[in-house]
């Protein structure tokens, strides 16, 4: 009972903030609303007994990535005035996008409601998870079953760092 109420509230907040992300003119406002969306999603993760992921979501996604976004927006000095006042060259892009989005929602809903979900049930029921501890389990999986992707992910981040630095570096003109 409490669970469904919590879900309804957090779900509506998420959807409302998502809509604001899309339809706000000012990019800073879009970023703020996106942060809010992520926080409410973290609450939903907790509801689903994925506490570690919820914490990571708030710390990494909302705390680091979105802050990066806001830094860039402020760096480029974008404001509301940049986008407003420009005539949209592709005038049927907006209506067709909304129609397409609507169809997409309907389809996904239909698919979700029609399918009978079945699959091999694993061994980690919520009771087991709470007994061992979510974080410990994630750690254990990462270092045994998924150690190879783990290492590759580190290389990926390394490459991303170097790429970002090279791409955004200020060009020094040599005399």
């Amino acid at each position: 009972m409490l669970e469904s109420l919590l879900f309804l509230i957090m779900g509506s907040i998420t959807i409302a903030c998502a809509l604001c992300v899309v339809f706000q003119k000012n990019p800073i406002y879009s970023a703020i609303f996106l942060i809010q969306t992520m926080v409410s999603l973290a609450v939903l993760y907790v509801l689903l007994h994925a506490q570690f992921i919820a914490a990571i979501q708030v710390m990494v996604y909302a705390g680091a990535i979105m802050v990066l976004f806001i830094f860039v927006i402020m760096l480029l000095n974008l404001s509301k005035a940049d986008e407003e006042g420009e005539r949209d060259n592709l005038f049927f892009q907006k209506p067709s996008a909304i129609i397409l989005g609507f169809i997409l929602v309907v389809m996904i809903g239909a698919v979700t409601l029609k399918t009978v979900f079945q699959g091999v049930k694993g061994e980690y029921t919520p009771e087991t998870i709470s007994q061992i501890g979510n974080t410990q389990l994630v750690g254990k999986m990462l270092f045994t079953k998924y150690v190879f992707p783990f290492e590759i992910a580190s290389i990926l981040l390394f490459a991303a760092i170097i790429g970002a630095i090279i791409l955004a570096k200020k060009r020094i003109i040599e005399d």
Partner: protein
Amino acid sequence: MIPLTWYLILSGILFSIGAVGVLIRRNAIVIFMCIELMLNAVNLAFITFSRQLNSMDGQIFVFFIMTVAAAEAAVGLAIIIAIYRNKATVNVDDINLMKW
């Protein structure tokens, strides 16, 4: 214990909103943010399935998705900064050299 299809429908709605956002907005950074929104929707679906199948694999996968999203955001924003330096605009309609 609420039926997990609700979570999946919520995920679908978020995904569509993100998709519409990508198509409608002209500011490159806002398009990026809508892409992040889509990734979050997918994360929600993964966690839901992880819960339903009593497995940790979904959560691990979300972990990696976040890693990749971080890397991608960093590189993508660096590209936008580079484009801004060249063209003084982040309007994607102005980047149309591939026109016939």
